């Protein structure tokens, strides 16, 4: 039961006073472990951060996969073949009309008047939600 006691001691010590966590390593861990993926002391100053998913996938692509092997990027769903239905940005109903000035979609006259009175940041917000913001100024 010694191990249990020690384990019990550790959490209570956590709660008393600002003790450095590093000074109280958890008993079941190897205290000297350093991740190899993380640069840390290893790769010097260059490789400090973890790779994010994009970088991991980019390096995975370079591996010698066969044609039919399943891997993370080959199981991405394909883009849609069907034309997308247009919904009003404001109310979500089916939108038959688009405002030429702001490119927002609307379905009723009231919505149109609402759209015309929106401040420009809200307009860009709605367009960004649909990923319809235009790059051309």
């Amino acid at each position, binding site marked *: 039961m010694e*191990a249990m006691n020690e*384990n*019990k001691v550790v*959490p209570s010590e956590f709660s008393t006073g*600002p003790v*450095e*966590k590093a000074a109280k390593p*958890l*008993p*079941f*861990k*190897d205290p000297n*472990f350093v*991740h*190899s*993926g993380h640069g*840390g*002391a*290893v*790769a*010097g100053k260059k490789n400090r951060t*973890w790779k994010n*998913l994009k970088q*991991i996938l980019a*390096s*995975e692509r370079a*591996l010698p*996969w*066969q044609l039919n*092997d*399943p*891997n*993370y990027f*080959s*199981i*991405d*769903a*394909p*883009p*849609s073949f*069907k034309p997308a*239905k247009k*919904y009003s940005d*404001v*109310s*979500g*109903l*089916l939108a038959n009309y688009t405002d030429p000035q702001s490119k927002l979609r609307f379905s009723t*006259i*009231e919505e149109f*008047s*609402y759209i*015309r*009175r*929106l*401040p420009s940041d809200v307009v860009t917000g*709605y367009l960004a*939600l*649909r*990923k319809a913001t235009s790059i051309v100024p």
Partner: protein
Amino acid sequence: MAANVFPFRDARSAPDPVLEAGPVAHGLLPVPLVLDNGSFQVRAGWACPGQDPGPEPRLQFRAVCARGRGGARGGSGPQVGNALGSLEPLRWMLRSPFDRNVPVNLELQELLLDYSFQHLGVSSQGCVDHPIVLTEAVCNPLYSRQMMSELLFECYGIPKVAYGIDSLFSFYHNKPKNSMCSGLIISSGYQCTHVLPILEGRLDAKNCKRINLGGSQAAGYLQRLLQLKYPGHLAAITLSRMEEILHEHSYIAEDYVEELHKWRCPDYYENNVHKMQLPFSSKLLGSTLTSEEKQERRQQQLRRLQELNARRREEKLQLDQERLDRLLYVQELLEDGQMDQFHKALIELNMDSPEELQSYIQKLSSAVEQAKQKILQAEVNLEVDVVDSKPELKKPLETQSFTIISIPGEFEGVSQRPTTQCQAQYTRDAETPDLEQLEPSLEDVESMNDFDPLFSEETPGVEKPVTTVQPVFNLAAYHQLFVGTERIRAPEIIFQPSLIGEEQAGIAETLQYILDRYPKDVQETLVQNVFLTGGNTMYPGMKARMEKELLEMRPFQSSFQVQLASNPVLDAWYGARDWALDHLDDNEVWITRKEYEEKGGEYLKEHRASNIYVPIRLPKQASRSSDAQASSKGSAAGGGGAGEQA
């Protein structure tokens, strides 16, 4: 009006106690630990052998950590999961080891594992002496598995580990034991949705598909929608509250277009809108002036501005007049024939010829004329302007561009002039919550008054007798978020990703794509066993919708079966636990430390709930040093001896 008003629960999580492992963890064989490592929640517990399978996982916590309040204080260090209490104050400091559904930041993963082991009562010294069953992503990148194995074996000294897919564990948990099933699993989680065909008890990995949309995208979409509708409540519309709305107030429409039509009808709207009551915050209603006082103030400001303008115009007029006089004088010089003086004057004025002088004179005189005209007009319009102008001078809206809501019936008698103030108020409001509300209210003048309080505080009607009632209404209704069609729009993104601009196909189309890759008889068998699992499938109406989609895509009068998991959230953990108990003695499925060292971290042993292993060797990452402070130079030799550590 009090119907359908719901408060936000804003639940805080209680910190987990450090549990004693109890007799559970001590047995002849070390008891396996089962960890469902998900991007939303981590669920951890023991897989206790014996008749009683045991309760739910001992630990369930959000897979996030954040440094203690107020920046990086030396003492408490990063807090994990339920110890954080409420997530909202720390929203910007939350870090998760996951990028989409793959753990990429193993340091944070280490924190989560520390937390799990500690709170489960792991007591072994120097290593965690229990086999671990861990879930991973479908077709987990080899790099990520390598990192994870390294963490488990090197840091925690685990004897053996098995990796599996959460949706497969859930699938087998819901099927009779040891049956060789084929089926289609649709698993929708926090970050992505997978469609996984199972053939003869084994995952057909090359035909799996993943849609990169899940609960978190739905919550983000809902948050943006509500923030754009209620810009005044930007800070109060938090992700936690959005998740609450999704979990408790949203549903999936069986037929989306038809459901939308239902929502157009004002009665249906009234009955089904969920008004979420935000806690009162006094900072938005800035001034406590009554509307008349505000009107007065506005008029004063206007007058002041106009006076300023008039003064400026007069000054300019004067200057122009003087200049004009001077030029005329110079012109006279020319007419009088005093050429020398004329030329001198021309040079002074920086002009070249008498023609230029002439044109300049003409321009100036016309400008002076116009200025005089404007001054005259301004004086005339002073009265009219005060009545017509908009209160908020900063708003870039033009009074003239207001359109009148065409109100059938009641308002025929009202004049249609754009500058009628009461009309202008209703149309001017940029913060009006719902247009659908305007539709129902149009038929009833009384209810039109009721919706007054929803407008921002700048626009209460002055000429209406309702003014006195408003302050009472204003507060409660102002702090309500009307969630109408958003109830069905947010969960709909997995069926129609074009709602948020994603190019990927939705679940139904992906399902059809996958089915088309199989011969007809296999399609039949697959479709008999469609299985829905994952937290994001828990919307009411999900099963009905899937059945309808299948009905549309399958041949006429063919059959299909859709089954929802008994507990879509926890079944993965239960399934993993069952699997662990079944395979305690089976060495074919566990990756031991020795195998890790021989074959590398990316090695995977296949079993019925695992990924497919593609034997590609990853180059071992840049070597580690045993001493954390070792310089970068001395570490090359450390790589080869990595196995000998600990």
